[in-house]
């Protein structure tokens, strides 16, 4: 029997990028992907079914990616879920704050699909080994 697919929650407000990242993660990475368009829905989805990893945009309508990460770290069930930022933002203060909140990786847009999958694999491997 096949092992269940690892689930990635992708949070992105750009519809075109949502579709493409889903193809990348499902077809290159072999993950199960759930996609939501804003931070509030991301927290709802994560609380409902805890994902193996959250791939999160920083600039989101309403609640920013940083606020989502902060909220996750304050929620018992989501405290240790690895978070990877995939972002166009380049503000060093945001980077510092994200690291302080324990973000696992920060990837810049535009990204190369294979490198995205490799980075996610590395984060999941580190997490599995307690890193």
């Amino acid at each position, binding site marked *: 029997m096949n092992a269940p697919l690892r689930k990635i929650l992708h949070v992105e407000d750009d519809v075109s990028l949502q*579709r493409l990242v889903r*193809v990348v993660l499902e*077809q290159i990475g072999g993950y199960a992907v759930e996609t939501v368009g804003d931070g*509030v829905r991301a927290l709802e989805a994560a609380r409902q079914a805890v994902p193996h990893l959250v791939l999160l945009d920083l600039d989101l309508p309403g609640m920013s990616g940083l606020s989502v990460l902060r909220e996750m770290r304050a929620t018992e069930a989501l405290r240790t879920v690895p978070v990877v930022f995939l972002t*166009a933002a380049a503000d060093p203060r945001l980077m510092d704050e994200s690291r302080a909140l324990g973000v696992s990786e920060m990837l810049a847009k535009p990204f190369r699909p294979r490198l995205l999958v490799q980075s996610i694999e590395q984060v999941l491997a580190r997490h599995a080994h307690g890193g």
Partner: protein
Amino acid sequence: MADKKDSSLIAERSADPAERLAAANHALRTPLASVIAALELLQEAVLSRSGGTRQSLVAAALENAERLAAVVEQWLDMERLDTGAVPMQSRPLELSSLVSALVAELGRPDRARLEFTPPSCGACARISGDPARLSQALSHLIGAASNRSAPELPVKLALAVSDKLVALTIEDDAPHPAAGDLGLLIAGVIVKRCGGSLRMERRPERGSRLAIEFPRLAEGA
């Protein structure tokens, strides 16, 4: 939310190089990410299993290349306006008529309802401005508020007139927009070049209010 500005004069933000850079950064990198992802997926031919098709990836690359072209055009437009390379064709105009026409044009059944309250004094909202450029600015502001809002939440527009000022407000109850709205910065530059001001205020959790003010033209001007 502490990481969003609560109130700001858009013309000041338009003039701030860091703000422009942040807006361009977001506006350019997101569609560029889609173009690169679509092309790399096509190159890798990973589509033998279910999911995307070659046609949908080509369509995504094209659509996002067009978005990139539009962003470049917006950016150039802002520079031309800001440096005065494009002259404003200002003339006296009645703002209430302009806003009414835009509301009729932009209202769609699948989008948030646009509710416009004209001034009680009738056709008294006379200002000086470039009608085409003001239409461009207001279309963007009204359209963006409508697009962000859920269909059941109206976008409220109101025009008020005092002795010296004509004030238009656009209020929505939608989530705050993400960064990277070059159209907002361009609107700030256009309003400023028409002698007015554009301010955006955000309520703490959700909902924004745009306040646009122009000097009122005297009767017969």
